[in-house]
């Protein structure tokens, strides 16, 4: 339900791309062979090329998840808006990118992916040497713990938190009214999850380990929305959770994602 309604979001505002857009298209079957220039290098003007394309909109939590990972990795990409209001995501050509008709989809050279959490994992692995680390380096044990908390976000946190965001924020955009009983019930479930987070964050700086990982990043979009509502109290009243929220939302890469919404 959430994904259906998220997919009926207002049409994207005209997006001025923050990152360099294509000046010419790479062949579908080869990786671009032009070098990226460092942003701080002086003239002469150079051609940069984005081999990474994200099809989505900055308001969508799932799109934001992917954008956050790309910014953390300092990767060039092109954001191609999808006209949700016109139902573009439920038709070709978008369905060829994601047959489930949901944003975002990502293209990197001739690889096409959907499902935001698979996309971020790919970005973290493929570009592991670039930008910020999004997986804790280490042995199978550390990786395994990261997978635990990645699954916690996807299976325990998001189903509840997304619904609250839907009730408090997205419903209003479609001329529907928040159901206070539903909010209360959902918040009752969320606090039990956040109590577990509080205990976890008393033992660990971030969810999976002592470094920021995808397990933390995946929470950012929905937390961002909830912190703009009365539900923020649930996070603020738990000291370790509150501190963690402050830390992860203060990351420069996240600020860039939020910035995109303002354009």
């Amino acid at each position, binding site marked *: 339900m959430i994904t259906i309604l998220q997919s009926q979001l207002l049409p994207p505002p005209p997006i001025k791309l923050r990152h360099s857009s294509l000046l010419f298209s790479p062949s579908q079957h080869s990786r671009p062979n032009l070098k990226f220039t460092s942003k701080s290098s002086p003239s002469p003007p150079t051609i940069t090329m984005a081999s990474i394309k994200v099809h989505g909109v900055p308001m969508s939590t799932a799109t934001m998840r992917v954008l956050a990972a790309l910014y953390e990795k300092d990767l060039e990409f092109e954001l191609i808006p999808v006209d949700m209001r016109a139902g573009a995501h439920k038709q070709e050509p978008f369905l060829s990118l994601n047959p489930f008709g949901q944003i975002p989809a990502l293209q990197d050279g001739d*690889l096409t992916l959907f499902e935001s959490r698979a996309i971020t994992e790919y970005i973290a692995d493929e570009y592991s040497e670039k930008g910020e680390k999004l997986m804790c380096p280490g042995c199978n044990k550390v990786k395994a713990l990261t997978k635990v908390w990645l699954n916690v976000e996807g299976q325990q946190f998001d189903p509840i938190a997304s619904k609250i965001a839907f009730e408090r924020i997205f419903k209003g955009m479609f001329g529907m009214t928040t159901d206070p009983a539903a909010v209360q019930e959902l918040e009752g479930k969320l606090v039990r999850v956040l109590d577990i987070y509080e205990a976890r964050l008393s033992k660990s700086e971030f969810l999976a380990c002592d470094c920021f990982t995808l397990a933390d990043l995946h929470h950012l979009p929905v937390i961002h929305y909830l912190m703009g509502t009365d539900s923020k109290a649930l996070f603020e009243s738990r000291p370790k959770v509150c501190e963690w929220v402050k830390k992860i939302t203060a990351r420069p890469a996240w600020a860039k994602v939020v910035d995109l919404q303002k354009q």
Partner: protein
Amino acid sequence: MAGIKVFGHAASISTRRVLLTLHEKNLDFELVHVDLKDGEHKTESFLSHNPFGKVPAFEDGDLKLFESRAITQYIAPRYEGQGTNLLQPDSKNLAQYAIMAMGMQVEAHQFDPLASKLAWEHVFKLIYGLTTDQAVVAEEEAKLAKVLDVYEARLKEFKYLAGDTFTLTDLHHIPAVQYLLETPTKKLFTERPHVNKWVAEITKRPASQKILQ
């Protein structure tokens, strides 16, 4: 010797996901029964294994995990080279891995919520003396049909969901599929020829048979 322990219930869909993986890998393990009917999963003792109070929980030596899909994704690479390969044929190929990961997300977010609800309505509710809500069944089946249409198209192109070999992506579906095959929802699988063939393949595997015993 600590070895591998699974704390769960032999009939639980998520516990079975882990048991399947262990059987596919021919790994020895101990299944420590958690009495769900009695609420054992909400006791302090179990919560120390999984603070979310859900089965399964898992130990391998001093590594403690929960969330079935995290556990299977630990077992598959950790015991690579043993038993069935549950990863892509080239486990180092990141694009191939991503395709498998994408399929695992689809199972978790598109398939399982619907399949679990239907299994609850048709099967588990009855165990608890409750009655099936046919309106819910109809609604969930309509959504599942749309998901399975996508699967049908996919399985026309590839033998399995992530390519031409059996991987975790397929495995994660098996426990819910097995339950649904015993219910009227079975028709959603049988009326789609490629899905039907895939279902037959994955459920006839020896490991898939073992978890039914």
